[in-house]
């Protein structure tokens, strides 16, 4: 096995906004920094189309800032294990990296929550953020009829961006009710004023597009690929013809690595103190791992983590007030877009829950806990390691997968010890 040993003051997992902010703050304060990123680009999901050339003001600022530091980054590099104290093991196309560090900052971001309904495995049914990410990577959306569904403010951004790229948005369906939605909107001026301008910008691009609250998909139809989707408002069902469905029910943090390390986790978020330090000394978390809050929150937390890891506590302290405001925004968002119970009953017995192993809801209903379901059906044992079905199973059956074993991402046999 080909293995290279590297030593840095600070290792950062991820290269999204939180990681970039952390890397800038730490290396400006004299620390040697390495970033380990699984994808071939910087910027995470939000800024992925800004790489290699940033176009928006915020991304240009941070990409330039990062390029002026001495921080080193390895792209296409997936952390698979923490085999010893202060050590990470990462897989690259060219063998393994063994990274020794003094301090560790985790900013592994988030993924979407999928709640299975009949037909959700059909070709051309995508996540909402996924459709956005794919469109940013020039996925063919021009001239396509797209239904956007699920939950969260992200749906606006997705619909607006798809429309700019030439798609026809046939419907935007938000599962939360109008009252919760409005209550959330009324908190914006206080908690996240910058989001108001963003909302207005999106709205202006969505003139003429139907946006419905208390509305969600119940079934997707198509023989070889998606042809139409049945929507409901709880009282009435109606069918919408479309080429693509972009649907996800919010975001959930990528907790595998913090869990493997043994960080304390509270309500699906890593528990951190005022300096972004986790329950483990010298291990920090920033961005969506500590609560889904979006880019501004991620950048602030990244800076705090970077400063704190570099020992600059006074500077880090100055950002705490801003961070607390974003934390309130996170809570308001979670409350405003809480998932309705009806969504957990959409799957019929034939609906696939685990897409890696094609395990159906009917098969899972025969078991009392995930361990026995897993052993008997292989649910969650495919290459995604339960990253997709885990959320669904947790919401539908209340089973949670808390045991994480390395490799936390599928790795080549030859790269495993």
């Amino acid at each position: 096995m080909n293995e290279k040993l590297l030593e840095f003051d600070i290792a950062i997992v991820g290269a999204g906004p939180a990681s970039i902010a952390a890397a800038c703050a730490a290396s400006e304060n004299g620390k040697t920094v390495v970033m380990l990123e699984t994808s071939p680009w910087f910027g995470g999901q939000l800024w992925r189309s800004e790489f290699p050339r940033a176009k928006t003001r915020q991304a240009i600022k941070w990409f330039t800032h990062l390029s002026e530091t001495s921080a080193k980054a390895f792209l296409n590099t997936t952390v698979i294990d923490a085999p010893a104290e202060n050590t990470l093991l990462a897989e690259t196309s060219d063998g393994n990296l063994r990274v020794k560090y003094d301090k560790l900052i985790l900013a592994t971001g988030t993924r979407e929550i999928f709640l299975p309904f009949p037909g959700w495995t059909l070709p051309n049914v995508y996540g909402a953020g996924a459709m956005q990410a794919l469109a940013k990577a020039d996925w063919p959306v021009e001239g396509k009829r797209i239904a956007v569904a699920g939950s969260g403010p992200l749906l606006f951004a997705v619909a607006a961006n798809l429309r700019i790229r030439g798609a026809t948005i046939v419907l935007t369906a938000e599962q939360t009710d109008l009252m919760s939605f409005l209550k959330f909107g009324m908190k914006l001026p206080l908690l996240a004023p910058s989001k108001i301008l963003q909302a207005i910008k999106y709205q202006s691009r969505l003139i003429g597009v139907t946006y419905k609250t208390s509305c969600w998909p119940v079934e997707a139809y198509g023989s070889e690929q998606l042809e139409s989707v049945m929507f409901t408002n709880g009282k009435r069902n109606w069918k919408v013809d479309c080429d693509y469905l972009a649907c996800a029910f919010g975001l959930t943090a990528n907790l595998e690595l913090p869990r493997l390390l043994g960080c304390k986790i509270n309500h699906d978020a890593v528990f951190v103190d005022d300096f972004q330090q986790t329950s483990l000394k010298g291990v920090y978390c920033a961005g969506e791992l500590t609560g889904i809050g979006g880019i501004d929150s991620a950048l602030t937390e990244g800076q705090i983590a970077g400063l704190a890891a570099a020992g600059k506590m006074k500077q880090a302290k100055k950002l705490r007030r801003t961070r607390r405001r974003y934390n309130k925004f996170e809570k308001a968002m979670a409350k405003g877009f809480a998932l309705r119970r009806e969504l957990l009953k959409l799957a019929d017995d034939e609906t696939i829950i685990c897409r890696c192993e094609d395990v159906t809801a009917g098969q899972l209903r025969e078991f009392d806990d995930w361990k026995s379901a897993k052993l008997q059906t292989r649910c969650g044992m495919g290459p995604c390691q339960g990253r997709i079905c885990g959320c669904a199973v947790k919401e539908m059956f209340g089973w949670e997968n808390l045991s994480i074993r390395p490799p936390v991402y599928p790795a080549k046999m030859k790269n495993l010890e």
Partner: protein
Amino acid sequence: MSDNVQITINGKTASVTPLTVVATALACEGVTRFRRSVTGEPRTPLCGMGVCFECRVTINGQPNSRSCQVLCEDGMEIVTDE
């Protein structure tokens, strides 16, 4: 603008701009069967960000490569629907 790169998808040649994500190249060429599930269903990407493994294809002989996380390179050979 740098020159396009040439790739082959299931034996057919395609020309794409550099830095094109493999998954996008496949979609632009009309592929709607990225992989075949264990029960034989066709699948396309779900998460678009390297988490779900639905976009798995064979790239240069390497099976189970996530096409949404790989950029096209000149001479790349991609096989889908396996």
